């Protein structure tokens, strides 16, 4: 049960990365990040159960809070960027290069 949870968490992490790489839409990329955060949360919880130590779960609380804050700021940045680029696709954000 522990192992399965951990494997899931690793897979989710991988999927999060994959989302980040596969999708061009900014929001979807950000969803990938959320996926990673969730995988971390899962890992925390699993380990918490495994180690019989609730500190891990405590971290989850913090991480959810942080994710919320990040989402707020991030989405604000997206909106602002969308306004100036008129596009939500990451491959348009290529002025700064080389």
């Amino acid at each position: 049960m522990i192992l399965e949870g951990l494997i899931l968490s690793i897979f989710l992490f991988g999927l999060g990365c994959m989302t980040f790489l596969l999708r061009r839409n900014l929001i979807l990329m950000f969803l990938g990040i959320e996926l990673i955060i969730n995988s971390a949360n899962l890992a925390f919880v699993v380990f918490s159960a495994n180690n019989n130590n609730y500190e891990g779960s405590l971290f989850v609380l913090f991480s959810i809070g942080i994710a919320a804050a990040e989402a707020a700021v991030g989405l604000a940045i997206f909106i602002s960027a969308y306004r100036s680029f008129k596009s939500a696709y990451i491959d348009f954000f290529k002025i700064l290069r080389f």
Partner: protein
Amino acid sequence: MELIILLIPLLPLFGFLLNAFFGRKLKKEFVSLIGIGSVGLSLFFSLYLIIIYLLNKYPEPLNFNYYSLLDFIGLKIDFGILIDPLSVFMLFFVTFVGFWIHLYSIGYMGKEEGYSRYFAYLNLFMFFMLILSLANNFLLMFVGWEGVGLCSYLLIGFYFKEEWPSNAGRKAFIVNRIGDFGFLLGLFLLFSEKSTFSFGDLFSGGEIYLKYATPIALLLFMGATGKSAQIPLYVWLPDAMAGPTPVSALIHAATMVTAGVYMVSRANPIFEASPTASSIIIIICGATAFFAATMALTQRDIKKILAYSTISQLGYMFMATGAHKYHYGIFHVFTHSFFKACLFLGAGALIHSLHTNDIFEMGGMKEKMKKTHWTFLFACLAIAGIPPFSGFFSKDAILSSLFIEAQHKNWVYIFYFLGLLTAFLTSFYMFRLYYIVFWGKPRYKKEPHHEENVMTIPLIVLAIGSLITGFLAIPVEKINLINKYFHPFYKDLTESHLSPATEIILIFASIFVALFGLRIAYVLYKKDEDFVLANNLKEKFNSLYKVLFNKYYVDEFYNLSFVKPFTLICKISYKFFDEIIIDGFLIAIGFILQMVGEILRFFQTGNAKTYAVYIISGIVVIIWLIL
């Protein structure tokens, strides 16, 4: 005494300084006064010194150390003066001839630009020449040695407005430097054996034991070949005639070029220690004497003829030293300085009045320049070796010493006969010159100037000198003053081993060749006023004539084999090694780095997703690597 001796070289130096710094603002009279006065004073002092020295009946050499140039453990070099028979002898004729040539210069240079510069250089030359003669160690001698080279450079290039004098000066300096290179190495080798440069320490014992005697002697001789224009470094001297004629007389005939002979005589124990070196000297200088004489046969430039004759005569001098008769070498230096100076000054007078160097543009000067003619004739007779002129005695002494040498080195006979042949040639080309210039029809274009007294007085003095100086060495044992004079100095070397009969035969042989040369010249150039016979000969032996006229193409050969390759190597090392290989290598490195930078830049695609790829793959790789 110490001070007086010091004053002898220093006075010309003061003269130089005054003329160099203030000369341009002074009147010509003052310049001449300074130039001649300083040399005159030093002549006066040296006469004083000589008289005292002679009156003292050859005391021990006097050695004065004024101050130390270098003072290390095992290496002490003093600014010191050595007074011994040899240096006194040199001192005398250097100051004497020098003085008269200074005087002559007033007339000769009177209208030239850079009058004060000329006298400054000349005084500087006197200073260095005196240092060279009086130095009590090799290094100080070397100072003088290089110093006279410098002055020669400056004076050859005196007419710097034209290309070739400055080229000639440069050539002289560089060729001399090549000789000095050998000289310096010889000194180093000597030092590494004896740990001293002082003549006193080295030569006072008379004999010297050296492990590397032959290399040392040869290296020193290399220096001498440079300075005294022997094969293979003689090439500068003909070119050096680009300088004003008095300069040629003083430096390139009378004094500086004989410095090599002086040095060899001075360092005689070293040459004594190496028979091989002596033999080599005879060979080289015999060859020089002969070839220079042949080259003089066909020249048209009066000064060139005299220059080749100088080289040839220098060969004689060296042959004497090679035959261990150093005093005869020095004696020939002495007599030669008079008659060659006289010849040059005479030539100078001709050039001065005719503004040409080509003997075929002169002719018939006998009437126009009587004093010059007579003095020139005297000097010609002297150089041709016709008794009782001085050249006869000195040359005969040399030839007989060669003959003596030949008695235990049989091959030297060749050089004895070569010497005789050279004497014949000398006589021939000198009288060729004489007849062409002074007899026959006038071929000059412009009317010659009149003779000036300032110029004729030195001529007369020197002519008298070339007449009488020979009597110092009458080839009779008892009244041979030179032998006597140098006896304490060269000790056992002065003795003759020839029977009187042989000596007389030798004397007649040399008189005969001299007269024979004179006769042929007479036939070719005096009797036949249009030189028909001479021209016929020229046509007949055209190829030989050309070779001789072009001096065996030695200059061309040197140019092709040394100068051109050298320039090419320089160009290659700059254009190829420095600019392409070394700099190119660095540029290539810089370029490669830049290229790498440019390539790496393209990983910076600007797409955030690419960056994420890098990040994730980085993490994966790190994990895989660490575990």
